Each structure stands twice: as structure tokens, then as C-alpha cells.
């Protein structure tokens, strides 16, 4: 029994236990001897337990407070060291928590669907919406790998019904889309099973956002009529907030199998998604799908893609790069704080020795060190949360917008748990580690690793930064500054019925040209940077030369001037009938400027088109994409249902946005005008993702440089403290301050140089990896060398300033102390 009591005494903090454990055990034995019988003993135990329950927490609090006070005194004497350690920890914990919250949103967090991991997208399946409703339903119920399948097609449409005409993403689907995803409407109802049948399908579910925008969240919206591209539909339900799959849809219609119902023009993509049968794994389902395709349509490539991967896509890969870099930074910070504490510990060896002599035990000293480390880590963690908040705010403002489905909050409990766990692990490890890494070899290895990691991070960020600069300075084929763009769409309006489209477009253009400050204006079917789908066809030159893939676009007179796209030969539309081609087209014919005046035969007509102009090649997809061979037809010939108006203005384009929109609105206020943006805004939207990754890597690399500098500084300072006597004696026998200082600098740079050698190898590897993962990235060994240079300069500066302490050594004092 007294043994149990001794065990309980272990719950006391070290100092109190050392002081009183013996006396308390003795007292307990005395008391225990005095009682006998079961009940008396039970009463004694109850009293003892109540006493300990009161006393133990009191003593823990008391010693914790004493240790805290002592820690603050210790750090107060060396504020620089404390600030460095807290900053290193805070930044590392903060950066990793911030990146984790983005990763959490992109990768770990589930889609707003039920069991999203069982959802797949089918690429090129055997049966599609094009096979008809009966065939699709039969296939979706009777294949061997899917429980159910839904199909849909998404396009922009004009919607009238509220106060304004709007341009909205509309998804036409089979009736089971919501059911299959496991989503039920917040208001009203979803589609009934037979509502995708002809005659029943004049119904719509609207998104929560559209409900707010058009009806201010009024429940009476259910039952109202909307006109989608002029076709009337009744609102029957509202999707839950945050659900806008696919592609930020605003309206869902069950009209996929009755595709003519809602009038539209252009090219459409039918997509099929499915839910895996229970018990069928992803790989098995993929095999089944391939076997099915081999039977029906041999030779065609089919596959399953997990919907989660599909939605995260490229973002996912780049996010793993970021996660990897964050872990490296975390490792560095960890090594760093351990170094700093270690240097503290060895400088305080004397203090510790005195305290040990005064009777403090190892347990007691360990408790003190742990408390000191925990003070640092918890302060670091607090700072880290602030940094994390900032990082994830930054991430969500510039991060990948294509994940519209995942409206994520910046901080959720998982992120907080991650931060807390990180702080805890770091606190315990850092407190326990100094004794572990006290051997010289391990510490040397730590420094080498430190330098190598820093170099790897710096050179990765150089690669990313240079790639980004390349994107910014890429020749786009147009001049994005001082240009206003506006989209208009005539779908569902009165113009589509006859041939009135051109009359509207020319009216809108002439009003735009009248705006004071507009120097030129034009229109185009497919604006560069707008992420449109492009249509390409084979063409034939009058010489008989065939050109397989030529992108088709159409534009008006003045468009090229407004965009700042140069004419290399020939002239604009209007001077004579004909088409304009770009330089990439001319190159593919090997005719150069002589292409002007030749004739082209399109696959759809026998009448040849005369080539009247040659313009510079435009990168349609933005700086990351290449230029494609392209033909521009005059818009007048066959006006599209929607196009983009472009105006070049004098002065900042932002100031013209409202004026240009109002001018176009005057042409006909019932025509929706949308995406009124400057061309520079569109460019920066395209660059948002690379900018985010570049900013993040630069931030991590700067952190790495800081950590490396702090680590080198700490180590150098520590070795000076340890070798005071040696240096004092050297000075006494004639060594100069300068020679001793440069010896110390050389010594602290040695592990950095070793690390840099290792790091150049590592960074060449990581450069390969980056090239592989990110489009347009190009790494070279030269960048590793630059990174090494940067690291060495930083190291030199840190070592030089740390060795300043040598000057404070007074050789006489040192020798006297001997």
C-alpha cells in the first residue's frame, strides 16, 4: 500500500518531490500503521486522496510559476536569442499551418457531396447523353461497376426574370444529378425521376447565390418563371449554399435529353459522372470500363478519373510542392531552435553546475529546461497562428479560383488542431533534444543539413521566380495596357430570330467609339485569355497545300488596332472582302509575308477566301500557352450569338469601365453586358495561380535564409562562449583579434560550405522535379550556384557579426580566471 502512495507522489513537480517525498512517505507509513481494519484504511485512503488532489495541482502551479519567472529572467538577459527563436518558430509554424489550411481545402477536405471518394468522372464512355435517354438510363442501371450515373452539359446562357438580364452558367443534366451527388435542395425540391422527359422538363433549380441575387432570398421565388435563352422554365428548388457543381453553375435544368428545348449555338461537351458500386474498387471499375469499351468500340481510350482529383487537378500537384517546401522549412526551424537552446544550455553550463551543486537534481534541471522550451514554443505557436491567418488569407485571395465548389473557411478546427499538435511536438522535442544533440558530430551534421535544405529552398524559389518573370514578360501578341473589354450576348433576345445581330453589334460599336477617350474599338468572337474553347478545322491553300489544325475566330474592323496586335503585311477588314491570318499560320505555310493575296478553301464551302492581312501571333491561353495558327473571319459574314467588345482608351482603363458599359447599354438595355474588365485584369486572373505559388515559395525561401542566418549566428556565438579561455590564451601569446576572428568565421563557415555542396546536388534534383510538375518551369545548374552564392554571403554576414564577441574578450581577465 505505501508503494501505491509513493507512485502517487510522482505526480508532484520535481522540486517539491525531491524535498518532501521522504518525509511524506514516512508520515504516511506512520499513519498507516496506526489504523487497522478495512474501513479505517478506506477512510485513511479517502483522506489521503482528497489531500493529494488538492495539493498536487497547487504545487504544480507554484513551481510552474517559479520556472516561468526564471525563464523570463533568462530570456530577458538575452532578448535577441529569444526573439530569434520565437520568430523562427512562429514563422515556421505559421507558414506550415497556413499552407496546411490551403492543402486542407484543396486535398483533404471533402467535396460538398456525400461520399465524394466514390464519385468518378468517365472519360470517353461507351454510352453518353448523345445515345438518348432510354439508352443512357438502361446503361447506367445495368453496367457492372456503377451504382448510378448522371450526365450533363454546361454553357453560359442569358437569364431574364428578375430586375436585370443576367449571364449565368447553366447546366443541363439528367434528372438524377442531385440525387447521385447526394445533395438535396435547401428550399423547394429537386428534379423528379421523370422530369428529364420531353414535356415535363420546363423546371429549374437555381443556386443559392442566384437566389440571393435575383430574389433576395425570398421563398416565393419557388414557382416563379425565368427565361433561359428565351425559353421559359419554372423555379422548383434552391440548391444549398456553397453547392455550384459543375463550374459555378447558377441554374440546373433537366433538359439534357431534350437538348433542342433551350436554344443555343456553339460546341457542347457532354460529361458523365458516376458513383461506384459498393464493393467495387476504383481500379476494378476502371478495368470493367475498359473491358466494356473493348467490346463495343475497340481501340478507343477510356478511363475513370476520381472526381476529387479532377476538381483539384493541377492545383494539387503544385500544392504538394508547397507542402514539401513547408516541411523543409519546418525541419530547419526545428533544428534551429534546438541549436539556439543548445547554445544557451552550454553557455549556462556554469549556472547549471552551480544549481546542481546546490542540490538541484537532473529531474529538476530538466523540468526547468522543458519549461523554458515550452515558453518559447507556445509563444512561437501564438505568433504562428497570426502568421497562419495572414498566409491563408493571402492564399484564399489569390489562390486557385477554379475550385468554386469548395468555398472554404480559412481557419477550421482541423487547422487549429494541426497548429496545436505542431507546437506540442516541438515543445517536447526541443526540450528533450538539447541533451540528445549534444554530441559534436550530430551538431555538425545538423548544420550541414541546415545549409543544404536552405540552398534547396532558395534555388527552388529562384526557379519559380524566374518562371514567373518569364510569364510576365512574355510577348503576348497584344498590348494589355489601356484596354477595356465587355461581353455581350444576344441569346434569347429578339435579335437572334432574324438577321438583326449585326445591326445591334454595329450600333454598340459605334456608341463605344463615341466615348471620349476611346481611340479605337472592335469586336471578336473569342477573346484571348478568356479561357474559351477554340474550334479548329483543316484548311487548304490555293496551291493545294493542306493545313490540318487551324483555329477559327472572327473579328471586326478595328479589333486588331484596339488590342495592339500588329499587322505584319496587308490590312484590316473593310478595305476589301477577305480573311486575316496570323504569323503562326504564315509560318506553317512557309510563305511568310507572301501569304497576303493568296486564297484559302474552308471545309464547309467551295468558294475560296482571299487573305487580306497578316497579323502577329496571339497567345490565346495567356503567357503560359503557345501561339496557334489562326484565321480571323469578318464577323459581319456570320455574326455569333455572343462576342466581346474591345476598346483602346487614353489613360487608365479602370476609369473607362463604367463609361464604356453605359455607352453599350444605350444600344439596347435588354441585352446583358457582363465581365466588364480591363484586359490587364484578365491577364492577372490568368496569372493568379503562378503568382500565388511564386509568392509562397519566395516567402518560404526568405524564411529559409533567415533561419540559416540565425542558425549560423547561434552556433558561432556558442563556440566563442565555449572557447573563451582558449582564445584568451591565444591572444596572450600574440594572436591578433583579427586573426582569431577570421579563424572563427572560417570554422563556422566550414559546415555551410559542406552543406552547400550537398545542397547543389539536391537543388538540381528538386529543379528536375519542379520542371516536371509545373508548366514552363526551367531549372538550371546556374541557379543552384546563384543560390549557393546567396547562402554563403548570408552565412558570412551572420558569422562575421556573431564573432564580434571576440573583441570583448580580455586576455588578462581570462588568464586571471584560470
Amino acid at each position, binding site marked *: 500500500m505505501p508503494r501505491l502512495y509513493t507512485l502517487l507522489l510522482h505526480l508532484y513537480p520535481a522540486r*517539491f518531490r525531491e*524535498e*518532501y517525498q*521522504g*518525509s*511524506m512517505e*514516512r*508520515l*504516511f507509513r*506512520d499513519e498507516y500503521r496506526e489504523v487497522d481494519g478495512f474501513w479505517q484504511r478506506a477512510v485513511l485512503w479517502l*483522506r*489521503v486522496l*482528497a*489531500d*493529494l488532489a*488538492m*495539493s*498536487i495541482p*497547487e*504545487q504544480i502551479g507554484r513551481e510552474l510559476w517559479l520556472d516561468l519567472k526564471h525563464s523570463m529572467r533568462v530570456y530577458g538577459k538575452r532578448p535577441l536569442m529569444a526573439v530569434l527563436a520565437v520568430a523562427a518558430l512562429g514563422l515556421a509554424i505559421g507558414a506550415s499551418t497556413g499552407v496546411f489550411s490551403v492543402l486542407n481545402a484543396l486535398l483533404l477536405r471533402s467535396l460538398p457531396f456525400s461520399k465524394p471518394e466514390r464519385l468518378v468522372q468517365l472519360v470517353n464512355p461507351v454510352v453518353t447523353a448523345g445515345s438518348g435517354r432510354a439508352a443512357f438510363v438502361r446503361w447506367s442501371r445495368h453496367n457492372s461497376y456503377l451504382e448510378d450515373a448522371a450526365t450533363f452539359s454546361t454553357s453560359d446562357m442569358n437569364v431574364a426574370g428578375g430586375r436585370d438580364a443576367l449571364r449565368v452558367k447553366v447546366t443541363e443534366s439528367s434528372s438524377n444529378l442531385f440525387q447521385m451527388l447526394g445533395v438535396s435542395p435547401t428550399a423547394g425540391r429537386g428534379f423528379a425521376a421523370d422530369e428529364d422527359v420531353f414535356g415535363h422538363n420546363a423546371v429549374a433549380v437555381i443556386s443559392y447565390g442566384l437566389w440571393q441575387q435575383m430574389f433576395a432570398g425570398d421563398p416565393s421565388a419557388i414557382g416563379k418563371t425565368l427565361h433561359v435563352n428565351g425559353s421559359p422554365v419554372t423555379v422548383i428548388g434552391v440548391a444549398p449554399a456553397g453547392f455550384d457543381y459543375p463550374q459555378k453553375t447558377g441554374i440546373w435544368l433537366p433538359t439534357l435529353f431534350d437538348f433542342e428545348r433551350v436554344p443555343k449555338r456553339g460546341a457542347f461537351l457532354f460529361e458523365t459522372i458516376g458513383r461506384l458500386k459498393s464493393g467495387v474498387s476504383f481500379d476494378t471499375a476502371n478495368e470493367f470500363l475498359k473491358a466494356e469499351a473493348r467490346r463495343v468500340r475497340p481501340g478507343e481510350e477510356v478511363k475513370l478519373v476520381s472526381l476529387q482529383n479532377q476538381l483539384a487537378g493541377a492545383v494539387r500537384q503544385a500544392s504538394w510542392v508547397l507542402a514539401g517546401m513547408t516541411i523543409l522549412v519546418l525541419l530547419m526551424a526545428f533544428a534551429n531552435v534546438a541549436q539556439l537552446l543548445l547554445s544557451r544550455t552550454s553557455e549556462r553550463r556554469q549556472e547549471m553546475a552551480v544549481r546542481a551543486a546546490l542540490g538541484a537534481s537532473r529531474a529538476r534541471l530538466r523540468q526547468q529546461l522543458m519549461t523554458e522550451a515550452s515558453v518559447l514554443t507556445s509563444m512561437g505557436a501564438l505568433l504562428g497562428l497570426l502568421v497562419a491567418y495572414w498566409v491563408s488569407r493571402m492564399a484564399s485571395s489569390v489562390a486557385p479560383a477554379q475550385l468554386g465548389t469548395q468555398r472554404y473557411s480559412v481557419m477550421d478546427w482541423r487547422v487549429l488542431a494541426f497548429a496545436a499538435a505542431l507546437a506540442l511536438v516541438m515543445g517536447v522535442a526541443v526540450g528533450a533534444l538539447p541533451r540528445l544533440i549534444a554530441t559534436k558530430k550530430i551538431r555538425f551534421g545538423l548544420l550541414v543539413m541546415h545549409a543544404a535544405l536552405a540552398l534547396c529552398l532558395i534555388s527552388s524559389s529562384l526557379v519559380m521566380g524566374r518562371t514567373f518573370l518569364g510569364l510576365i514578360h512574355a510577348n503576348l501578341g497584344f498590348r494589355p495596357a489601356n484596354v477595356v473589354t465587355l461581353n455581350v450576348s444576344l441569346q434569347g433576345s429578339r435579335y437572334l430570330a432574324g438577321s438583326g445581330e449585326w445591326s445591334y453589334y454595329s450600333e454598340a460599336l459605334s456608341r463605344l467609339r463615341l466615348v471620349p477617350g476611346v481611340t479605337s474599338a472592335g469586336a471578336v468572337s473569342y477573346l484571348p485569355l478568356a479561357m474559351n474553347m477554340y474550334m479548329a478545322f483543316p484548311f487548304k491553300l490555293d496551291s493545294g497545300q493542306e493545313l490540318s489544325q487551324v483555329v477559327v475566330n472572327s473579328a471586326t474592323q478595328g479589333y486588331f488596332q484596339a488590342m495592339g496586335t500588329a499587322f505584319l503585311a496587308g490590312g484590316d477588314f473593310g478595305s476589301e472582302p477577305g480573311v486575316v491570318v496570323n504569323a503562326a499560320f504564315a509560318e506553317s505555310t512557309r510563305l511568310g509575308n507572301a501569304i497576303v493575296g493568296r486564297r484559302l478553301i474552308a471545309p464547309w464551302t467551295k468558294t475560296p477566301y482571299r487573305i487580306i492581312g497578316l497579323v502577329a501571333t496571339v497567345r490565346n491561353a495567356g503567357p503560359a500557352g503557345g501561339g496557334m495558327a489562326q484565321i480571323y473571319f469578318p464577323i459581319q459574314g456570320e455574326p455569333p450569338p455572343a462576342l466581346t467588345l474591345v476598346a483602346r482608351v487614353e489613360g487608365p482603363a479602370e476609369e473607362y469601365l463604367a463609361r464604356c458599359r453605359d455607352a453599350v447599354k444605350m444600344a439596347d438595355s435588354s441585352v446583358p453586358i457582363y465581365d466588364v474588365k480591363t484586359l490587364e485584369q484578365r491577364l492577372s486572373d490568368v496569372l493568379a495561380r503562378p503568382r500565388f505559388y511564386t509568392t509562397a515559395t519566395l516567402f518560404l525561401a526568405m524564411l529559409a535564409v533567415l533561419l540559416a542566418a540565425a542558425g549560423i549566428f547561434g552556433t558561432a556565438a556558442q563556440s566563442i562562449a565555449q572557447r573563451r579561455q582558449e582564445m584568451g590564451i591565444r591572444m596572450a601569446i600574440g594572436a591578433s583579434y583579427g586573426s582569431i576572428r577570421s579563424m572563427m568565421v572560417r570554422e563556422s563557415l566550414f559546415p555551410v560550405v559542406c552543406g552547400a555542396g550537398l545542397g547543389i546536388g539536391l537543388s538540381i534534383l528538386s529543379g528536375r522535379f519542379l520542371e516536371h510538375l509545373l508548366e514552363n518551369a526551367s531549372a538550371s545548374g546556374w541557379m543552384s550556384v546563384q543560390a549557393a552564392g546567396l547562402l554563403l554571403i548570408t552565412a558570412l554576414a551572420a558569422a562575421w557579426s556573431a564573432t564580434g564577441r571576440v573583441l570583448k574578450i580580455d586576455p588578462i581577465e581570462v588568464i586571471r580566471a584560470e
Partner: protein
Amino acid sequence: MPRKSDGERFLPLSLPIFHMLLSLSEGERHGYALKRAIAQRTDGKLNLGSGALYGSINKMLEEGFIEESDERPDSHLDDERRRYYRITALGRKVAAAETARLRSLVKMAELQLGIPEMA
């Protein structure tokens, strides 16, 4: 405000500490004896557990009310491992100050409640 004397700084004392100081003013004692003495003088009403006892001892040592004594009375009779404590000058001052504090408190209460002073 008048400056507080040395003893008054620590007031009021907790009941166990007051009893322990009173008990030690009679002579040096070890922990267990102290506990027994307090239980006796309070008719068993104040029976300190070991945690409370040594917690208070620890506090009094830190404040300087008591100190560990080096000489062991009856050391031949007793186990050498037992630690004896004795009251310091400061401890006496504090106990006296607490007594004065209690006295004035009692006086005030008697006046208030009309209880006749004891002869």
C-alpha cells in the same frame, strides 16, 4: 497609508500556517509531530493531510517563517532522516501580528454584537 511592519505584510495567515507557527513556538518539531500537535490542540478538527502539511511547510520555508534545524533533539532516540523545523524571528513576528489582527477583529465584532467583554 502607514507603512506595514514586517509581520503585517504576510497577513492574513491561513489557519494551518497559524497553527503550525503557534505549535513551533513551543519548540522544534518534525512534520509528523507538528501534524499531531495541531490535531490535538484543535480536538481533531484540523487534521492536516501530508500534502497540505508539507505544502505549508514549503511555503513557510520560502517566506522565511521557519527554518530547518541542524541539531536533532534526542537524535539518538529518533531516526536521523526526520527533518526538524524551528520558528524564526520573522515567524514569531508574523504570528504575533496575526494574533493582533484577530484580537482587533474580535473586539470589533463584540462591540457590534453587544457581547460583554470577558473579564
